[in-house]
C-alpha cells in the first residue's frame, strides 16, 4: 500500500480526566471523513476492513520512507 498522504500523528504524554475532552477526542479522532482510505486485508475467506489500523500502518510506512530517504542522502 502506498501512502501518498504524508501525515504522521504523534502523541505526547498527557493525562486527562476531563470527561468533556475525552468525549471530544472520541468524536474528532475516531470519526469523520478519512482521505487516506481504508485497507482491506483478506485472511482465508474472511474480508476484514481495518479502519483503525490505518493510523498505525501509515505511521509505520512513513517511518520507513524517512529511513529510505536518509540512506540515499
Amino acid at each position, binding site marked *: 500500500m502506498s501512502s501518498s498522504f504524508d501525515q*504522521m*500523528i*504523534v*502523541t*505526547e504524554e498527557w493525562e*486527562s*480526566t476531563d*470527561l*468533556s475532552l*475525552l*468525549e*471530544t*477526542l*472520541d468524536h474528532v*479522532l*475516531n470519526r469523520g471523513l478519512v482521505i487516506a482510505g481504508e485497507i482491506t*486485508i483478506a*485472511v482465508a475467506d474472511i474480508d*476484514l*476492513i*481495518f*479502519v*483503525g*489500523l490505518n*493510523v*498505525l*500502518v501509515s*505511521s*509505520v510506512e*512513513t*517511518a*520507513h520512507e*524517512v*529511513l529510505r530517504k536518509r540512506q540515499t542522502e
Partner: protein
Amino acid sequence: MELSPENPLMAEPQIETAHAEEFVEQLRCVTDTLPSRINIDAQSVEQGLAKLVLTLIEFIRRLLEKQAVRRMEGGDLSPEQIEELGLALMKLEAKLQELKTQFGLTDDDLNLDLGPIGRLI
C-alpha cells in the same frame, strides 16, 4: 425550526451522566490506543510491524480455538483427537506468548480496534 444567526439552536455539546468517573476510565482507552511517538530507528519500525503480524496471528489463533471447541461440542471428535487438538492449540498459545514477550508486546498492544468489528480481544 428555521436556522438563522438570530436563532442559534446549537449550544456547545453538553454532557450528562451520573457516572463521570466510570466513563472517564472507559473512554481513556481512546488515548491509550494512539500510536506513541514514532522513533525512526530500525527497532521501533520492526516493533510496529511485529505488532501488526502478531495481531493477525492472534486473531487467527482465536478463530482456530473457537472452531476446535465447536467441533468438540459437536461430538464428531474422538477423545484422542480432542487431546491432540488441545495440545496443539496449547502449544500455539504458549508460542505466541513467547513471541509477544520477545517483542515486548502486551495483550493490550495487540488489542487493535477493528472498526465495525470491534476490538480484537
